[in-house]
């Protein structure tokens, strides 16, 4: 078996990765056709915290790593005729994704576990696993386009044909090495086209709904999860109660923990006000939560650290980009400038609402991902 002849498909049991498996498996057996192998990373035991602190007992289908999803993935592999394996990465996932997620929340930030997972597990670990079983490349069901630009001698990551499904925001951490060994077969397709292909292949899960929530938090209640997780670990829930203050510094109330808040949040502040109030800032050191009017949420600049550059080798001079600061955010024009310690400052043309520490900022030049980093 020579290199480049085996591709490992990361299969979650959802429509997208199942369709990738079906597309790649078609034509198997031909002389120059690569061998296709299905892999599922077992990341989190969905039964682990079930029933504790209000976490649902039986996770519904559509969360990765549930027994149902592994079953679905296995059935697809059987149907399209590829070998299929489940690889246990639970310890790494807990160490690299769940624990940092909990720590970030306790520090008053609003983390995105999916980006951490993509960086540490989905690509890094999957590629390592793929190589160790003799596959040179991996294929995933992400909506993104990657291609090599010989002029710049770099692998470029681009937004997909279906902008509504664009997942480049979560993929900004991919290295050149990872991009060079990854296939995104859905990048030039729309979701309806993908479902049509799934139906053509007779995949029973063609109509399976998309998963939306964070995979290890069934029900989506972060606070429940963090409470149950810390209890399981035998760690006390840190007391992060503190003052609720107005933008001018006046103390207007108290709250019982900063983990309940995220920048831009309106509901559940526990204070009465004639005009709507929003969380403007969370100070993890003093536990002070600052609230104010909607217009006070808007910020003109952001600082990001731990940058990864894709279309450029590094940022040496100011650059005009469009910056995306959360998953559903419409990228906004900004000027990106290098700052000390490898950090960057982005100055928006128009002030942006709820720039949230812990989220990532991803910078685009047209459809290309320039790079991205973590807002702090």
């Amino acid at each position, binding site marked *: 078996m020579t290199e480049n002849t085996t591709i490992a498909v990361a299969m979650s049991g959802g429509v997208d990765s199942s369709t990738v498996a079906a597309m790649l498996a078609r034509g198997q057996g031909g002389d120059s056709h690569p061998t296709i192998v299905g892999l599922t990373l077992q990341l989190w035991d969905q039964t682990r915290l079930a029933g504790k602190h209000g976490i649902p007992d039986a996770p519904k289908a559509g969360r990765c790593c549930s027994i149902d999803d592994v079953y679905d993935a296995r059935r697809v592999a059987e149907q399209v005729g590829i070998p299929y394996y489940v*690889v246990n990465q639970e310890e790494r996932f807990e160490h690299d994704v769940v624990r940092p997620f909990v720590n970030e929340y306790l520090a008053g930030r609003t983390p995105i576990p999916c980006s951490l997972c993509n960086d540490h597990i989905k690509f890094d670990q999957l590629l390592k696993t793929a190589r*160790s079983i003799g596959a040179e490349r991996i294929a995933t069901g992400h909506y993104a386009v990657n291609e090599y630009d010989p002029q710049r001698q770099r692998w470029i990551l681009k937004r997909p044909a279906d902008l509504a499904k664009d997942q480049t925001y979560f993929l900004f951490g991919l290295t050149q090495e990872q991009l060079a060994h990854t296939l995104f077969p859905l990048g030039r397709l729309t979701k309806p086209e993908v479902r049509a292909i799934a139906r053509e292949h007779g995949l029973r899960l063609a109509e399976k709904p998309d998963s939306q929530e964070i995979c290890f938090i069934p029900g989506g209640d972060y606070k429940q999860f963090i409470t149950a997780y810390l209890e399981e670990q035998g760690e006390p829930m840190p007391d992060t109660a503190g003052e609720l203050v107005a933008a001018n510094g006046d103390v207007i109330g108290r709250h019982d923990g900063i983990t309940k808040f995220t920048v831009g949040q309106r509901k559940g502040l526990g204070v009465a006000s004639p005009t709507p109030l929003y969380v403007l800032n969370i100070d993890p050191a003093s536990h002070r939560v600052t609230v104010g009017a909607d217009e006070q949420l808007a910020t003109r600049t952001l600082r990001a650290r731990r940058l990864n550059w894709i279309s450029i080798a590094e940022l040496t001079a100011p650059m005009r980009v469009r910056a995306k600061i959360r998953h559903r955010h419409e990228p906004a024009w900004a000027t990106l400038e290098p700052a000390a310690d490898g950090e960057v400052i982005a100055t928006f043309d128009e002030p942006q609402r709820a720039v949230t520490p812990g989220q990532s900022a991803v910078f685009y030049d047209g459809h290309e991902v320039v790079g991205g980093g973590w807002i702090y």
Partner: protein
Amino acid sequence: MDANATTPLLPEVMEAMRPYWMEQFGNASSIHQQGQTARTAVDRARETLAEFFNCREAEVVFNSGGTEGDNTAIFGLLRPGDHFITTSVEHSAVLRAAERVAERGVEVTFVAPRRNGLVSDGLIDPEEIRRAMRPQTRLISVMLANNETGVLQPVEEIGRIAAAAGIFFHIDAVQGAGKVPFDVRRFGCHLLSMSAHKIHGPKGVGAMYVRRGTPLEPLLVGGSHERRQRAGTENVAGIVGLGKAVELAMTSLEDGTVERIAALRNRLEAGILAVPGTGVNGAGAPRTANTTNIRFEQVEGEALVIALDLKGVAVSGGSACHSGSTEPSHVLMAMGLDKSAARASLRFSLLRTATDADVDHGLRVVPAAVEHLRALSPVVAGTAG
């Protein structure tokens, strides 16, 4: 090379079973001729099993296999207030059943394998069993051969200790049956469980030895099949297959087959041990002829299992968890290996039909795959115990 997971039917077994699917489809409990034909087939198999166990025919109970036998012994004898002794290297069919009775008021002691130094050879010290005994101890359950390492437990000594104390003794013989000389009287057990599919018989059928007078409550109740020890219409074809498989296994114990398999296993083991940073788990203990469990330092066992499978060598590592991924083996952890060393260990187990060519193929593939893995991901040295 995963015979401890399961084995194919031998052609003779297939042929023996064949008439009982269609032509001779009778229910062994029916009065009429069709039923009598089926009854005859079941009784012949019972005779074979009685010869194999060295017991009375009335002491043979057919069932669905090893898990049912293990569960029947534990659920059928233990009541709240009783004390139960088993070991931490048992199959999960025993361990999970032990946990279940523990939830229902049975005290359970899990005896760990002896330690000589940091890591154990996997043997249970009979004296540890004796030390664990209490006045309330009603049952001891120990496996004959370990499924992961092949280590053979000193069941005869344990049987003597149990007999002296008047304690019931069950042997999980799923992995040992057909691989070592067999005699329930010599073992001194009251109960013994075995399965057909580990010895080139069909899946879903097994047998239990139940010594006369043992107050074993049946797990399944209904009709009066198997002398009311196990209700449910007899799996006639399966039982015939089990009988044939046992007959062939008895022959293989005497015609040099075991020695031939041991030689193949030894050659495979020696060839793999020539790769640096490898070691045998359970080395030094008596083992079944077909099994070796090898740890590969600086290797992810799960990846090695997949890589070998894609090159036509089927082995296993750890035990499958609910999703089908693997967890580090509880057997190896009980022997003192840490998680990464347990993860880096694979079981190679040869079929009775294994050939020199199989071993050659294994020795072509395994060392190369290990080197490939190590070259890719240099794990910090010394992770394997």
